[in-house]
């Protein structure tokens, strides 16, 4: 059965990170395909951005309230309106296919995903396809060092678009990319200058991530770190989901993100969560890079990294002696970022 739900792309990123510039070019080259509706959210009362965007089927502007917090009702209403209008169109070839939501620079994409999943109408009509986060190559390191919001945006991303890379030195860019991959190792990285995609040179192997101060204040749970857990090939999906739901229930506030592709008898399932919210798993085609199948990345804190794999094995009733090897993702030892 084909998933006919409306696809939603969330475009996030800090204030001035180049979201609109990037989106404008993507719409111009029709990168999102035909029949795209754009929703622009601006936290300020005076809209600026909507005049710049052409090439979309329609534009909705939500001004005066960030849609991850006080403007959430307006966003839900706008999305419901779109779904309603779409349901009245019978032809498959004329229906709206995708909505791109450009968030304000102050929005946490994770909160928006959670709001959509919690809405009983939207959950039936919308599937969150991708969270793209624009990262300002010039200023991102400074923002990440001081702004908890900047880090939440980075943690929620499926894809980074590094902007203004032409104005940034190669060394600084390498440090930024290494830092991003320690904060969020599973997101893909692309770069764009004025919206046009540019190639990225490989990061030299000896680059160290920037030292980021702990922003959580008196939070003693430690830094957020990624952990990989390899799951057994003949996994019992029901048992695994029981374990994961119990884990998210107990530790959901600490587990910022879980992502991975699980092989099941029904096919390859793309599993992803943001905090306690699990997106309905998508069945992926048997193509592309399948080497990362059955490896699940947990990004979080407040637990010993090796306990994740141990707990899963215990739950599945497997002997704990066999090394399931929850190795920290990058060169960071002991699961520590700093």
């Amino acid at each position, binding site marked *: *059965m084909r998933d006919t739900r409306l696809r939603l792309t969330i475009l996030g990123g800090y204030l001035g990170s180049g979201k609109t510039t990037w989106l404008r070019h993507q719409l111009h080259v029709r990168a999102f395909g035909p029949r795209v509706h754009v929703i622009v959210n601006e936290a300020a009362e005076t809209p600026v951005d909507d005049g710049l965007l052409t090439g979309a089927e329609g534009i909705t502007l939500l001004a005066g309230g960030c849609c991850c917090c006080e403007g959430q009702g307006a966003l839900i209403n706008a999305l419901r309106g779109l779904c309603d209008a779409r349901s009245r169109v019978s032809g498959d070839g004329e229906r709206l296919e995708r909505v791109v939501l450009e968030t304000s620079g102050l929005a946490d994409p994770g909160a928006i995903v959670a709001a959509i999943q919690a809405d*009983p109408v939207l*959950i*039936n009509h919308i599937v969150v396809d991708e969270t793209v986060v624009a990262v300002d190559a010039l200023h991102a390191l400074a923002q990440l060092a001081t702004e908890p919001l900047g880090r939440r945006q980075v943690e929620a991303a499926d894809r980074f678009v590094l902007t203004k890379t032409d104005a940034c030195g190669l060394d600084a860019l390498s440090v930024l990319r290494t830092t991003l991959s320690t904060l969020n190792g599973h997101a893909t990285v692309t770069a764009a200058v004025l919206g046009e995609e540019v190639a990225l040179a490989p990061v030299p192997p000896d680059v160290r991530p920037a030292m980021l101060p702990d922003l959580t204040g008196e939070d003693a749970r430690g830094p957020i770190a990624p952990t990989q857990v390899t799951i057994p090939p003949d996994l*019992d*999906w*029901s*048992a695994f*989901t*029981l*374990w994961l*739901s*119990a*884990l*998210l*229930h*107990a*530790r959901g506030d600490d587990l910022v993100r879980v992502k991975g592709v699980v092989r*099941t*008898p*029904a*096919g390859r*399932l793309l599993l992803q969560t943001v905090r*306690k919210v*699990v*997106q*309905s*798993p998508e*069945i992926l085609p048997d193509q592309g890079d399948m080497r990362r199948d059955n490896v699940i990345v947990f990004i979080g804190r407040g*637990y010993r990294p090796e*306990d*994740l794999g*141990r*707990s*899963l094995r*215990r*739950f599945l009733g497997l002997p704990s002696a066999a090394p399931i090897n929850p190795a920290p993702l990058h060169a960071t030892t002991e699961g520590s970022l700093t």
Partner: protein
Amino acid sequence: MCNACGNPAAPGHWTDAGAATPGDRLRARFHRAALLSNLLRPYGLTAHDGGVVPGIQIGTMAGAQTIVHNLEELWVEAERLAGRPVDPLDARYLGDA
């Protein structure tokens, strides 16, 4: 959505992914209930899913019963009925303590 019981509120819970046909879904429900039953026994709880009524019935050995609609609700209710947290990373669960 059924007006009387409110089911289903969402198009299949995420844990149902991969069970495409009604038969698969029913099998998955029975299988999950069996796993849950084993799992909750150390907490003094029982789990039952007859496959007819929507939801999973959980109860205590003393007879308190409740019906939950998905696994998120299940853990909340299990903790309430058992009177203690259910945490897969707990040292006692892992056998460390």
